[in-house]
């Protein structure tokens, strides 16, 4: 039995002094323990949406608008309970740093949640070693490289073990190895702790592994569905200003060269299998 953990209805948002709405009447649901990717062109409203989910931004009063997180409606009364459930790793790790050094920084969220000191030390250490930053415990934020900052920002959130984790392009500056190991780590938490993951990303390959993809285009939701469904709708992808995963691009290129690949060949593994089968007949 899956449970709905996020429910958003008719959500719009306009920044002060802006002429356009940043989000236009968005509705969507997320099931507990799922991995949702959010994709969309620059300025399409992804970060705005993430900040609305935990009440950092507040939509205008509207009786049709509803945000429900884990059974609680987002309002001033429930705000702190909801913030406890959601951990956001912000797009720019500099905006996340509050501590004077790495370990204080990671401890901050735990202090806020009144986690006992002995438990806190354990969790800070565990989170820092999980992201490979334990030897930088005492370093100050400005002494870190870009990728190291992103790792510490992630440690700060996994330490609090939120029910819902939102990653806003949190691995954009990691090398491919590092990115894979962080994504593996998050996947492990998803499986072992039942965490729900929302990943905002421009890395299309990464979204192929998600349960669900939400596509935003100029503040509007234009699609939601499984990766195969989303990426077979090339017209929508193109219109939304997005790119295709490698395998879909390869199929397009092959077709330009007169080689047509059946549509059910939709992963790299299947493509290898398909080509090698042809090859063995040659």
């Amino acid at each position, binding site marked *: 039995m899956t449970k709905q953990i996020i429910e958003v209805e008719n959500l719009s948002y306009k920044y002060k002094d802006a002429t356009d709405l940043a989000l236009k009447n968005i509705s969507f649901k997320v099931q507990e323990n799922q991995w949702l990717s959010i994709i969309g062109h620059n300025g399409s409203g992804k970060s705005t949406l993430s900040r609305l989910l935990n009440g950092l931004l507040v939509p205008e009063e509207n009786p049709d608008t509803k945000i429900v997180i884990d059974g609680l409606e987002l309002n001033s009364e429930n705000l702190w309970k909801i913030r406890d459930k959601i951990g956001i790793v912000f797009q720019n790790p500099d905006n996340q740093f509050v501590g004077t050094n790495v370990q204080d920084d990671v401890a901050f969220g735990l202090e806020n949640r009144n986690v006992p000191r002995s438990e806190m030390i354990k969790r800070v250490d565990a989170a820092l070693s999980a992201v490979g930053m334990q030897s930088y415990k005492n370093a100050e934020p400005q002494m870190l490289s870009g990728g190291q900052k992103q790792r510490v920002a992630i440690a700060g959130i996994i330490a609090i073990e939120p029910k819902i984790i939102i990653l806003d*392009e949190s691995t954009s500056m990691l*090398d491919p190895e590092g990115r894979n190991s962080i994504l593996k780590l998050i996947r492990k938490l998803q499986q072992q702790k039942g965490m729900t993951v929302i990943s905002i990303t421009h890395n299309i390959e990464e979204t192929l592994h998600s349960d669900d993809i939400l596509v935003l285009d100029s503040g509007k939701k234009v699609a939601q569905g499984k990766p195969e469904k989303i990426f077979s709708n090339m017209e929508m992808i193109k219109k939304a200003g997005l790119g295709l995963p490698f395998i879909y691009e390869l199929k397009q290129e092959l077709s330009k060269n007169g080689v047509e690949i059946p549509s059910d060949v939709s992963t790299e593994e299947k493509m290898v299998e398909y080509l090698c089968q042809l090859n063995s007949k040659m």
Partner: protein
Amino acid sequence: MSIEFKNVNYIYNQGTPFEYQGLKDISFNLTDGNFIAIIGHTGSGKSTLLQHFDALLKPTSGEIKLAGFDITSKTTNKNLKSLRKKVGIVFQFPENQLFAETILKDAMFGPLNFGMDADLAEKNAKKWLKRLGIKEELYEQSPFDLSGGQMRRVAIAGVLAYEPEILCLDEPAAGLDPVGRKEIMSIFKEYQKNGHTVILITHEMDDVAQYADDVLVLQQAKLIKHTTVADLFENPEWLAEHYLNQPHAARFAQTLKQNGFKLKQTPLTIEQLAKSISKKMREYNE
């Protein structure tokens, strides 16, 4: 002329408990007018190295020659303005680069600061903002009221607006959407072809393969390789040993090969991969 690093060492926070050697005995020569990629893992020293190009960091020892300047530990800040006019850096975090009241003022700051007259500064700023996909309606808005990717675009426009001889880019495509990434990478390539040097830090091997001439590989503060793109990717074993990737097309070709489907040449781009697959299939049909 060329860009020359001779035995460059850099030590952060020397003499404190946080002392850390960010660069170790780095030497290389780069040809002006080339497109050079700098690759390496998190913390390998890429940003540290790049900040030496405009003397934002000065070598603790060793010597750098570029754009007619000599930079050593003794270089004073006196003549740096004329160096920085010639060497522009787009930093890893664009927010640290933005500061003006409005987007247009931000993009005009560089040209004005380096002595361009106001009309030309405005013209250039607008030209590059437009090319970077920033709409005119936004020009009078604060650069901080933008999305992450939009800030990145403004930061890039602000450096291109004074058209530096040497354009240094620290992961400029991080945070750009896929279409923007392609467009902006090809703007850099065009900028190089028009007679400038481009230095690009990236983790994206597809971009290295597609745009760069030469590559510098850093590992733990040392330069472990300086070679051409073709040579770099002809050595999958060496790359694997150093936990570096081949471009996606090459990795795919590798998997094909392991499964018995061999291509004549290692493809570096999707276009090359599709061509060689279809060629192989045609040869069979004939």
